[in-house]
Structure formats: structure tokens, C-alpha cells
């Protein structure tokens, strides 16, 4: 593999905490903790996790909306923080972001023209004729009628608004798009439209995607690599087919077992509480251990590192006792708690 487009090492973001005038220092909340991740040019990396696992924080760190507390991000060899410091716009020209809620990411008092023109003007320095031409091009690229450009965001449906959000991200001509749950707020029929559009744009503009979602089936259709997050850490990473064929981490299996498939076998519900640990006093070992049916003593004492399962094979898991063998939902087990 050549140098990755995105090279993340030990990325950490802590919220809150700090010194107090009296008493002991306050504990911070680790939203993202020691993440190592490579994204190759042209990849679509899916990042999966449930609410509170830190996937949105990771996204914000990548596009520079937030600053890491520790660790580094290198983009095509350049340090991201240096890039940000040198030129406010340099990062935004390379990495762009698509928001989850299409309507709240569009200023309600601005016309689509103004929303799309901003990145063209400030990031690409376009004016006059060239700007107009590019605006028309953008609307065409995301399949919106050219006359829509004079309208206000509230006149659009969710799917159309999301396409405007995508057009805005594309306006800066980026190489990497960070898509933060881009289809979660949309109806299924619209969801499929937007996924199709994203797939086409990727091929057309040679984009690299970081696709964040809580929905395994959506991530599966669009990604060629998947990373699973739990409680601020990456716990498993593999090519999509490998991951769905033989998920190694018990949490990944729980996720797969819980996702209902239309007409599919019954889902399995976890026994006990399906809750995250208290972020202010995280367990010393693996964060999943309290929920894990396979947890042993070593899991409760040390955090398992994200390692290759089998040397030479491209499948990483952060587990001392990974599950082997292919995954198959047990069809005989019904969805009930015992």
C-alpha cells in the first residue's frame, strides 16, 4: 500500500476536565481515545458505532471543526494542525463535510445560490461568470433543477436538501468527503437515491469517502472497508466482506445480531443492560467487558490493543478472546428475553 491519504495516529479528544482552584483535578470525558486509522486514496471507509461512541467527534476532528487533545492526523503527508495554522482555507479545500441533518445545516434565511456560492468564492476564488457557470454545474451534478437555486432551504424536501448539502461540499473541489450519517434523517426511498448519487460522484470526481453511520446495512452497501467504534475506541477493522463474513469482536457480533432484516431471521436481544459504561469513570479494561458474554479476567484489567487477528491478514480486532468462524444468525433463536 502506498502512503495513505489520511494517516491518523493516537488521536484523542477529551472534553471537560481540567484543574480546579480547590480540590482534585476534574476528570475529563474521552470522546475519542487513541485512534489509529489509515484511509487509502479512493477508499470508502465506513465507520460504524452506536450513539455516544465518538464517531461524530472523530469526523469533526478530521475537518478541523475541533482540535485534538492528542495524537496526529496527517493528510497526504502534511500535518493537519500545521495546515490549519498556515492557511485557514487549505484544509477546507481538501476535506469537506456532509452533515447529518440536511435542513439544519442550511441557513434558513439564505437562498441556495448564496449557500453554494460561499465555498466557490472564499475557497476557490471564483467570481462573476466563472462562479455562475460553476453554480449551474453543481446543481446539475446533484440532479437538482437549475431554477431551484433561487429558493430558500425550507422549500425543499429532506432528500433535496441533502443533495444541496452534498453540492456545497463538492463546491470546494475536495479530495476527501467526511459524510456524517448523511442518509439517517431520510426516508428509505430517498436514502437509496442519495446513496446512488454518492456512489456516482465518487467515481466521477475520484473522491475518497469516510462514511459514518449507525446503520450497518447502509455502511455495508457503500464501503469497501469498515471500522467499528465502541466507547471512543476502534474495536475492529477489516475489509467489508471479511468483516461481515467473520466478525471477530463480540460487540460487532452483537451489532449484527440486533439489526433486523426485512423477512430475515429473528434478531437476538442482549440480556441485561445494553448500556455504555459511565464516561466519567470508565472501566479499567475493555469497555465492552461488562456486556460481553466472553469476558475473562484479563479483559477487565487491560485494554486490548487493536491487533491483526492472523499475521498478514488484513483484519484487526481489539479483543483478547476474539470469536472465530463465520457469522450466521441463529435462525432457531427467537427474539425474546430469557
Amino acid at each position, binding site marked *: 500500500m502506498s502512503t495513505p491519504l489520511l494517516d491518523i495516529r493516537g488521536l484523542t479528544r477529551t472534553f471537560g476536565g481540567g484543574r480546579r482552584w480547590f480540590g482534585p483535578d476534574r476528570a475529563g470525558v474521552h470522546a475519542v481515545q487513541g485512534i489509529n486509522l489509515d484511509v487509502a486514496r479512493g477508499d470508502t471507509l465506513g465507520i460504524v458505532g452506536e450513539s455516544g461512541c465518538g464517531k461524530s467527534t472523530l469526523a469533526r476532528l478530521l475537518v478541523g*471543526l475541533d482540535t485534538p487533545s492528542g495524537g496526529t492526523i496527517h493528510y497526504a503527508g502534511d500535518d493537519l494542525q500545521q495546515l490549519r495554522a498556515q492557511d*485557514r482555507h487549505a484544509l*477546507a479545500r481538501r476535506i469537506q*463535510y456532509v452533515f447529518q441533518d440536511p435542513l439544519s445545516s442550511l*441557513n434558513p434565511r439564505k437562498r441556495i445560490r448564496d449557500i453554494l456560492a460561499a465555498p466557490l468564492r472564499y475557497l476557490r476564488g471564483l467570481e462573476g461568470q466563472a462562479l455562475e457557470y460553476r453554480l449551474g454545474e453543481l446543481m446539475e451534478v446533484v440532479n437538482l433543477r437549475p431554477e431551484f437555486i433561487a429558493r430558500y432551504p425550507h422549500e425543499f424536501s429532506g432528500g433535496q436538501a441533502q443533495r444541496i448539502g452534498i453540492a456545497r461540499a463538492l463546491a470546494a473541489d475536495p479530495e476527501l468527503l467526511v459524510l456524517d450519517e448523511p442518509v439517517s434523517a431520510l426516508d*428509505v*426511498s430517498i436514502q437509496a437515491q442519495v446513496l446512488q448519487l454518492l456512489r456516482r460522484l465518487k467515481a466521477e470526481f475520484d473522491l475518497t469517502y469516510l462514511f459514518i453511520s449507525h*446503520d450497518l446495512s447502509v455502511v455495508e452497501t457503500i464501503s469497501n472497508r469498515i471500522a467499528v467504534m465502541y466507547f471512543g475506541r476502534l474495536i475492529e477493522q477489516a475489509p467489508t466482506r471479511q468483516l461481515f463474513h467473520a466478525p471477530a469482536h463480540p460487540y460487532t457480533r452483537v451489532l449484527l445480531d440486533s439489526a433486523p432484516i*426485512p423477512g430475515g431471521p429473528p434478531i437476538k436481544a442482549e440480556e441485561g443492560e445494553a*448500556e455504555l459504561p459511565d464516561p466519567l469513570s470508565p472501566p479499567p479494561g475493555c469497555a465492552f467487558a461488562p456486556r460481553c458474554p466472553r469476558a475473562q479476567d484479563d479483559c477487565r484489567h487491560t485494554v486490548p490493543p487493536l491487533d491483526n487477528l492472523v499475521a498478514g491478514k488484513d483484519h484487526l480486532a481489539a479483543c483478547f478472546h476474539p470469536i472465530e468462524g463465520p457469522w450466521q444468525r441463529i435462525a432457531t433463536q427467537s427474539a425474546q428475553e430469557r
Partner: protein
Amino acid sequence: MMTFITLIARNRLAAFGGVMLLLIVLLVLITPWLPLADPNITETANRLMPPLSDGHPLGTDALGRDILSRLLWGTRISLAVGVAASLVAALIGSMIGIVAGYFGGRTDNTLMRGIDMLMAFPYILLALAIVAVLGPGLMNALYAIAIVNIPFFARNIRGVTVGIAHREFIDAARLSGKGNLRILASEILPNVLPVIVITMSTTVGWMILETAGLSFLGLGAQPPQADLGSMLGEGRKMMLNAPHVATVPGLMIFLVVMSINLLGDGIRDALDPRLKSGALSRPAPFTRIRRRHKPLPDPTNDDALLSVENLQTDFEVGHDTYQAVNGVSFAIQPNECLGLVGESGSGKSVTALSLLGLVASPPGVITDGRVALAGRDLLDLPHGDIRRLRGRDVSYVFQDPLATLHPLFRVGDQLVEAIRQHQPMSRADARTRAVSLLGQVRIPNPAHRAEQYPHELSGGMRQRVGIAMALANDPQLIIADEPTTALDVTVQAQILALIQNLRREKGTAVLFITHDFGVVSQICDRVAVMYAGRIVEIGPTKTILETPRHPYTRRLIDCVPRLGEPDNEPVAIPGLPPAADALPEGCAFAERCDLAEDACRQGNIELIATDTDRQVRCIKPLGIPTPSPQGVTR
């Protein structure tokens, strides 16, 4: 802009205030060209002439000056000073507020503590002190009034800005390459402008009063210049022998301030988005029912627990009628779970809310149909009876438990209330029952959890409390409106399992509303697919998922990405559903259907039976060569 004016005009009082203010402003604007006596020429021979005297329609004051002339010139100055002061206060105050709210942190702290210091002094004393330092005079009074009103703007605008500064479109603007100044000016300002206008419109009147107050004390306008306050001050000395000298400016102050305040309230109501969305129009506790005739019960539904026949619910907004539910019929047998599936706007939630008259009215109206619970038509019952049914025979579980649980009461107390509403039970007994309910929904350590507030529970736990509350009175039917949509998949799996178990143990029937076919196939015995306010297909879940008859059902299933089948690419449905105020003739899906022909766009397409237990609203159902001619017409 036009809608804004019509909104104001619809508010009678505001319109009255606006017209009055317009007249006054016009009058003072043309004052220099009116044939009036010079306001400052004294004529001691004609002192204290009463109103309606020759040449002096409003009389003269102690120095023989024409009161009408002084009144108009004085109003001109008072208005100008009041408006100028509020503009200055608005400009500086809003600037401080926007900057403090946007940057937050230390900037916010420094600026707002400064504002707090201004507010620590009594209002009018501070103004007096400022004038005392600057010396009396109209301009200084203006500064004083402006300064004491800055905190009012700064605090209001800061609050609004803080709310906007964390919205996603601000992040988006930042990623579009806009700097802080640009974001302040072009993203935040347009969104706080209405609030600035509202704040101004409600303070201008107050500032005119304050200016008048300072002039009254002799600190504002200096003689011989007239403004309303100083005229009032001069007239005060001869209140008994020449009351008109004080009464006339007093009346003018009253008129000006009243008209400004009336108009200001109108502007506030028209601009405030919360008021515009109808938050202040209290919906009735029951949906309005306007059926032209009472439909006869359908005999095929005799043994059903709940039968809904040809239900129609409209939203009437102004002159538009939105047909949200457009002739929906279905039946639920005891202990059955019926799924109601559809995309947003398909009318599934409105259907559910219509059953017990929970659709907000206005704008909702039930215009036709029958909702029978064990044979009784619920739309025919008096309100008291419906209220006794709600939560006892039929209960709801909503999507967002954080929104449906009261944030200020412990969950145990809320359960006790739900129980005691319908069952005569002592508080202690109800408490025991509440704890046992929490246990039934598998909440660990229920006695302890009952003492907690909703925000102390996780999303999954809150939804369990919501389900416990729905179970409180052993209902025959639970209506669950997207109960797992806001939850993570692992929690969703647990909640679905819980609902299944409760159904088995208690024999409750469930109407399960969702957009997710995966969830439907886990939990529902039968499923009804809704599109544009109508059921397009209904039947047993398994057969519908395997062999959908309606093209919409087929395509909706095809859009769902299926876990474990990455090659099976989801196929999008082109286009959008029709608008609910312009439903097309014939099949509402025809526009998006690749099998549509001319006949699909004509007449009313009925729900027809294709198999013994299935019905579909399509003239050429999939997988059936010719539809059975004797369709069940509903």
C-alpha cells in the same frame, strides 16, 4: 414582506396602533410646512388662553405660546429622540450581544459582566447620574437613555445568538471558508434581526417615556425648546387654574406610547417564529369531528378488537385542505400486532392519533369514518368517555420518551399518576404497582429507578418507562408510534423483545407504526402499507414481504439495503410523494410507478382482495394475472 403586513393587519389592535402612529408621524413630518405660529414666540398678553380660542385651537401656555404649535414641534423632538436612542441602544447592545454569544468563553464573560454592572444600578437613577455628569440637554438625555437600555438588547440578543452559534449551518459556513466576521455579518445577523426588531418595537415606547421623564425633571430639552416632557413639566405648575397646558402633552404622550406599544406587540407576534407556528393557539383536547353522516358498522369486523373504517382526517390551514388520512380501513384482532408502515408524510402517525381524537385541532378535523373499539364507535362518544378510554383501554407509546415524560417529576410519580387516573387506589398501593410495572419492563433495580428523573435514565430505559406507563392500566390495545426509531440497534432489539413478551403474557393487541420493514418483519403478524394517506396493501407480514402485490410495496422493500447482501444494491424510487393538498386522481403512486398506465390515473382505485387474507389498492397487482372481479370495496 406582504405576509408580514397582512399578519399585522389581521391583528386589529396592532393595525389600530399602526394607523394611529402613522398619522402622528405624518403630522409631525409636515409640521414645518403647516400654517402654525412660531412655537417659541412669547406673547404675554395672550397667556393661558383656553382651547378653541381664536387663532389658538389648543390655547396658549403661561408665556402665551401657541400650544398646538409647541405640541407638534415637541412631539417631533420626542419621537426623534426616542427613536434615535433606541437605534443607538439597539446597535451597540446587539453588537455586544452577538459578539458575546458567538465567541463565548472569556469574551462572553467579560462583556456580559460589564453589562451586569450597568444593570446593578437602578434604571432611572443611572440615567439621572449620566445626565448629571454630562450636564442637562437633549443630546445628553439621548445618550443617557441609550446607555441604560443597552443591557436590555445585549442580554436578549446574546441569548438568541448562543442558540444559533451552535447550529450546524454555522459549522457549514466555516467549512465554506467564511471567517468569523463574515459569519457574524452574513449568517448570524440575518437570523437575529427579527429579535432585534422585536426588542426595538417593544422598547421604543418606553424610551420615549424616559426621555419625557428626563425633560419633565428639567434635564432634557432646555427652554425655550419644547418637547412633550418639558411641556408637561411646565404645565404641572398650573394644573389647577389651566389644566389644558399639562393635559394636552400628557394626552399626546399617551397616544404616542400606546400606539407604538400596540404596534410593537403586533410586530412581535408576527415575527416570533414560535407564535407563528401556532404555539400559542391552544389546541382543543379532542380533535374536531365533522362527519356528514354516521357510517354504519361493517359486519365483517364484528369480532375485531379495533376496527377503523374509512377514516378521513384533514388539516385545514387557511384555505388549503391537506388530506393527511384519506379513507383508511383496517381491523385489529385481540392480541394481534398490526404494523402500519410508510414513509414520512404517509399519514401513519395521524391515523394513530385520530383513533382517540388526539390530532391537534385546529388544524385537524376528522371528516368521515368510524373507529370502533369492541363495537363502540369512539368518534361518537362524549368527551368524558373518550378521556376515560385514553390510557385505560387504549394507550400510546411515542417515539421520543424524553419528550413525553415530564422532566420535573420522578418517573415513579408519573407512573402513580397514570395508574390513579383510572383506578381507585391508594397512593401507596399505586406506588407498589408502579415499581412492579418497572420490573415487568425489565428495568433493573425498579424501586431505585422509580425515584429518578427522566434525564437520569438512558434512552432505552426511558422508553421502557414509556412502555410501563402504557401498561399501567392493562390496556386492550397499545398504539406504538415509532417506539424504537430513536434508539440504537442493540437497545431496539431489547425493546422489540420486550414488546413481544408483554404481548404474549398479557394478551395485549399492538398497533405498531414504523418506517422500517426490518422491524415489521420481527414483530408484526400483519402489516398495512400506507402511501399518501391511504392503505395500499394489507395482509400477513410474511407473505407481503415475500410476494408484495402493490408496486409501491415492492419498490419500498427493494430500497432497503439488506445486511449480509452487499451485492444486492438498493434501488431508489424516483420522484417524491404527492403533496397532501394536491392529491392526484387515481393511484397516488402512478407518477413514480414504472408500471403505470392511463387507467391508473383515472377514477378512484379501490382496495381489492387478491387472496383470502390480503388486499391491495392496484388495478394490476403484481403476481396476479387478473384481479378478482368482486373486490371488497371500502
